[in-house]
């Protein structure tokens, strides 16, 4: 057996022994996922076990270096782990902006001290992070941000308002963009800083969305002390890292267009719900819409795969994250419009015994934000037109 075959067998055996039964099903809704953090209340003993067991091996962040608590897996091994988890429908042990966003940025741009301080608690799910990017006056035009960080020698004093802070009221730390040089050109003079949400002067306030949930906050910064050793990269050079993070965010949000392994496909959901006669779904117009979506979704999933493979082999054109973000989010919106058509009047039930907390209509409304957050579809099309097509 090759090393990889051995790794696969060991991984399979370990998962078989260590993945609790209730963790072998897709996450039903946002409340069902494990986000960790200081204030986290586990939904079940098994959710806690699953996180602890995976974190102990560093498998919450499989490809991060072991010295920072990660799994230290090679790409091929990380892929096997993913496949083996999918094989038994194992859900992710931890959903985390630490793992998805600030962690990779720290690995690339952070000082050794910052990596040592922040990465291990992220892997263990002990510290939950939020992102302080957008402001009331800086949405699509993010570089126009005005939150200021005044230089006080060994620290900054931050003042201003952030908005669309994901789970700002539940997070422990924020990674935040501040204007630290008010005289520099727009993109210059921005720094990426880290601070604890319990620092005096930080006030997150949840925003209720059309979906009824409050995954975002507006966060007020009132004379917040930010230590200079918590600047990621160089002072006033934060825009480069911010763009790197936006690319990550685009990829993450774009992946909403992918169907989770182990879940029913839209076609299967539709077929079960409206019925099939003589091989064809009963409702021909719905069938036409569903099959068109399935074809696009298959093509999109293959494209995500191809882009990754091209980057690995050095063939890619790069800058495709804008396309994946644009297409994936539009696809996800279409998916939920079809979910409404499939489930008919049941899809209108906001709150009811068999409605999984109104999951269909609430998710449908939530998807409307997918093509806004992380850069609107229109901004993605601008990026493609300018950076890839060279249209000025």
């Amino acid at each position, binding site marked *: 057996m090759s090393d990889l075959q051995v790794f696969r067998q060991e991984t399979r055996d370990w998962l078989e022994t260590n993945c609790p039964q209730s963790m072998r099903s897709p996450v039903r809704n946002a409340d069902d996922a494990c986000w960790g953090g200081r204030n986290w209340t586990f939904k079940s003993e098994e959710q806690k076990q699953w996180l602890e067991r995976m974190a102990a091996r560093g498998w919450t962040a499989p490809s991060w270096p072991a010295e920072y608590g990660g799994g230290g897996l090679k790409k091929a091994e990380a892929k096997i782990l993913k496949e083996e988890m999918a094989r038994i429908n194992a859900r992710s042990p931890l959903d985390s902006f630490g793992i998805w966003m600030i962690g990779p940025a720290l690995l690339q741009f952070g000082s050794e001290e910052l990596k040592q301080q922040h990465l291990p608690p992220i892997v263990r799910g002990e510290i939950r992070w939020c992102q302080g990017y957008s402001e009331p006056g800086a949405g699509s035009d993010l570089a126009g941000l005005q939150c200021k960080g005044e230089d006080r020698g060994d620290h900054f004093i931050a003042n201003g308002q952030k908005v669309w802070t994901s789970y700002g009221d539940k997070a422990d730390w924020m990674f935040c963009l501040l204007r630290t040089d008010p005289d520099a050109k727009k993109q210059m003079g921005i720094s990426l800083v880290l601070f604890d949400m319990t620092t005096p002067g930080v006030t997150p306030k949840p925003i209720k969305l059309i979906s009824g949930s409050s995954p975002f906050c507006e966060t007020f910064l009132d004379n917040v002390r930010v230590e200079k050793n918590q600047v990621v990269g160089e002072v006033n050079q934060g825009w480069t890292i911010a763009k790197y993070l936006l690319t990550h965010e685009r990829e993450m949000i774009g992946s909403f267009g992918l169907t989770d392994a182990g879940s029913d496909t839209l076609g299967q959901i539709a077929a079960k719900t409206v019925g099939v006669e003589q091989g*064809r779904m009963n409702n021909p117009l719905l069938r036409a819409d569903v099959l068109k979506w399935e074809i696009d979704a298959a*093509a999109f999933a*293959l494209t995500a795969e191809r882009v990754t493979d091209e980057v690995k082999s050095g063939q890619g054109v790069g800058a495709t994250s804008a396309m994946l973000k644009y297409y994936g989010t539009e696809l996800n919106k279409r998916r939920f419009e079809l979910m409404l058509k499939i489930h008919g009047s049941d899809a209108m039930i906001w709150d009811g015994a068999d409605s999984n907390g109104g999951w269909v209509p609430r998710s449908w409304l939530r998807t409307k934000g997918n093509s806004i957050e992380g850069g609107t579809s229109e901004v993605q099309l*601008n990026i493609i037109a300018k950076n890839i097509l060279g249209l000025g």
Partner: protein
Amino acid sequence: MAMVINEEQQMLKESAQGFLAEFAPVSELRKLRDEGSATGYNADLWRQMVDMGWAAILVPEAYGGLDFGHVGMGQIIEQTGRTLTASPLFSTAIIGASLINLAASDAQKSELLTAIAGGELTTALAVDETIHHAPTQISMTAVKQGDSYRLNGEKRFVIDGHSADKLIVAVRTSGNLGDTTGISLLILDRNSAGVEVERTEMVDSRNAAIVRFSDVSVSADNLLGEEGQGFSALSATLDIGNAYLAAEMLGIAQESFDRTLQYLKERKQFGVLIGSFQALQHRAAHWWSEVELCKSVVLKVLQSLDQGDPRSPAMASIAKAKLCEVVELATNEAIQMHGGIGMTDEYEIGFFIKRARPAASLYGDYNYHGDRFALLSGY
């Protein structure tokens, strides 16, 4: 399998690109059209393709072929979509070679495939009888009489049917319209007694034919495979054909995009380049994104065919359907963004929309393949 092409395939792609751009650009198709070419293709060009080994790519080595695989051949066909090159490559070296390889006996293969690889034989597949693709709706009959079959019926949209040396015909030897069993495959000379070929010049300036068979006698030795059992080889060949039509349409979608993008960077109105207008930028960016998806499905179906993946039929329908959709978008946007000049015959962009529709229609359009994909998916 990684979704990238290897170095050899990349080299073939580049050499095809160079060769076709030099010897078979769009202007060659215009010339063939304006001269009223009898065959619809340039025999010298075909000879050069054969000399480069293109006719042998899908033929197994045992029969004098290169056995280079579908991903390799797909690179060439994609390039012929960029140059709109007319040649027997599709109907002979892809459809003919694949069907014979799938259905025929060793003796037949050794005769026919060797001839195809050497450029000594061209073929045309006659399958459809109705205006919409329906490979089980075969009413043309072949009645066995002693050692031969007597053929009666009519076939439409027979690509290269006016020029090919031999016709491969899907006929009904038993069963009813719509049955998959009872379909047989026969190969015969185009100029056999009782075969009437009506050349139909198509919108793409390429040639197809309506072929009528009246009491045509064909030896039972010319049966490819078992009597009544031809459908599985036919169906697998149509999957292959659709994968290549998708590859050709990918070439069309990319070339019409590249030409339009260039135009957006040259054409001025209101004192500025029209490519500076956001209304056009966003449409171009959307179009580009759709083409990216097309690249993935085309590569995937070619890889699936090379690997003998059981999901190949579904993948073929996904690829064909997606490309039908996007090539329609691409060619319509190309004309619209070129404005008035795009409507002129003198300008080449019109040739792309005219080739795109027959390529989409052949062996099943979007509706056919969307329906088939859903059926294969259980709904």
